């Protein structure tokens, strides 16, 4: 198996590459990103380049990869502008799929890390979204819009390339010791926002389970869309209680307006899609991927518990220092004659 990982500089790209390169069945791992990997990698080839069509098409053709894992998707709207979200998610995916589907392409499998954002959050939602759920309303926020467009692109690609196994993994909100998400940042604050009078059902998935799911899809043939979320649900109040956080109520009307000063004062950036979640919550059915043989190491309550433990530990001993990519060192380790 020869694998191309997009977004090698993201948390997911780095973790996935790390997991894949340990597998002797994986012959080659190539990663493309503008930023360097976040974890030390033994044999993954890092190509520091943007995700333009020209670059991706050349890399795909030159390496002859058979599997592409697309992790370079931004689902955290607090980190970047709507314009940039569109550029990364929609244009990046368009370029990648075009490169993977180019004439004479060696690609036989494409795995896309999508998000449960595609289902949106409204009062009229079913409590458990299945993968074939039809979204009742149009996207409410830029990040949801871009992810829905990605879903459409993936669907078109699946139809146009019947010989390619296409997997879309729709991940729920992630928690874990190392990953930084909107929820992990909210829950690290001394007081945590809630919407007055609402205590939503929420699902979380552990960072290790997301990496495993990506690797699972890369190793097995599992065509179609799959929800990736810790089985079962928890409530926002019990998540806050598990972390020992006090809750601060936001008004149930004009909540977005109330969140704006917090954003400007840089106290907390709570995007509208997260405020909607804090009101109505979301549950997704995780049966389909488990039927295909994937097992979760953590269900939703266990994910929250693991995160709470990590936060308690880091309050005492601090967070571990992040890995710094050193090109010279990597070149030395991989190519020098001194290495045995």
């Amino acid at each position, binding site marked *: 198996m020869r694998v191309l990982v997009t977004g090698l500089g993201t948390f997911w790209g780095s973790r996935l590459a790390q997991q894949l390169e340990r597998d002797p069945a994986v012959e080659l791992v190539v990663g493309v990103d503008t930023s360097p990997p976040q974890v030390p990698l033994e044999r993954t080839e890092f190509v520091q380049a943007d995700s333009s069509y020209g670059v991706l098409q050349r890399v795909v053709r030159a390496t002859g990869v058979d599997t592409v894992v697309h992790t370079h998707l931004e689902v955290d709207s607090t980190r970047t502008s709507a314009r940039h979200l569109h550029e990364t998610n929609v244009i990046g995916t368009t370029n990648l799929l075009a490169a993977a589907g180019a004439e004479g392409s060696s690609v036989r499998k494409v795995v896309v890390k999508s998000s449960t954002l595609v289902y949106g959050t409204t009062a009229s939602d079913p409590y458990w979204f299945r993968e074939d759920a039809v979204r009742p309303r149009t996207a409410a926020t830029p990040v949801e819009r871009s992810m829905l467009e990605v879903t459409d692109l993936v669907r078109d690609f699946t139809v146009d390339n019947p010989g390619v196994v296409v997997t879309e993994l729709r991940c729920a909100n992630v928690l874990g010791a190392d990953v930084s998400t909107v929820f992990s940042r909210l829950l690290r604050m001394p007081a945590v926002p809630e919407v007055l*009078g609402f205590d939503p059902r929420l699902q979380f998935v552990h960072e290790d389970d997301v990496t495993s799911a990506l690797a699972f899809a890369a190793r097995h043939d599992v065509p179609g869309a799959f929800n990736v979320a810790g089985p079962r649900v928890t409530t926002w109040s019990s998540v806050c209680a598990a972390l020992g956080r006090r809750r601060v109520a936001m008004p149930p009307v004009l909540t977005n307006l109330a969140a704006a000063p917090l954003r400007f004062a840089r106290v907390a950036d709570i995007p509208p899609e997260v405020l909607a979640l804090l009101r109505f919550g979301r549950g997704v059915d995780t049966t389909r991927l488990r039927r295909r043989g994937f097992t979760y190491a953590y269900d939703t309550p266990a994910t929250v518990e693991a995160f709470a433990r990590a936060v308690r530990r880091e309050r005492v001993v601090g967070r571990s220092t992040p890995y710094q990519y050193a090109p010279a060192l990597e070149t030395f380790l991989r190519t020098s004659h001194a290495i045995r």
Partner: protein
Amino acid sequence: MFPGAVTASEPPLRVVRGHVEPDGVETDLATADATTPALDPDDDLDLAPVDGWGRSERIRGIARALYEPVYRYWLRVEWEGMEHIPLDGGALLVGNHGGAIPSDAPSVMHGIERELLRPVYGLAENLFRSIPVVGTLWSRAGGVPAHPDNAYRLLHDEQQLVLVFPEGTKATGKLWRERYQLRRFGRGGFVEIAMRAGVPVVPMAIVGNDETMPILVKSDRLAKLLHLPYFPVTANQFVYGPVLGYVVPLPAKLRIRVMPPIHFTVPPGQERYNRGVVMDEAERIRDIIQVAVHDMLETRRSVWRG
């Protein structure tokens, strides 16, 4: 926690020190998502205080304790034919609705849980979900938004008892003079869900509910303004005052007659069912309930004493 809560579904993944062990190889995955909390309550109840539907056995217990005197001494609920409600397996309970803020739903849920030790999930308008505090408590007490996917999952995947009032707010918004005249049974969606899930419909006729909170007049303009299905002035407000008159029911005697379950002959699991067949069945169930309601009214001597 009462035993009925966990019997209907397979145990979920068992959580041991932050890790999950698949509970045997043959775990029924279809139900593993939404089942009640794991079996070791000390470990897990804090992090999963609700089941997959937001229902909390703790809140449910409090609600039962608070509602018991109302059920027993105020409405003096009396059941007839409760043996028709299955002790296991899914079933859709269908009744006639009544009262501005209806007492029939909590009474049916309370009575079945008390007698049969089985949880009942009550389907209701999405409207509830959007109201702060009320929506959360409603969900904790066993209310579920009436989405077809929710009903199907509860009935088919989890084999639970589900309560639905197909007339919806058209029935609870009836005026005093329209009492016990059953409204349209929606578009028969409830029949279609029961057919697809392969579960029986259990019809229930309820008498007394329309007198627990009769509507004297309604304001369409205020209802529209507040985005409510109706804005009533209730008889209760002349007794208990303007606010409590929306909360406290009048002490009408509540009688519930459960009729034999209706099993459908069509094969389950189909995407679509013949509209004619669905509407026929819905009409038939409505007629059964209407006839029973008339019968119960004919034998009723007094609204208050039954």
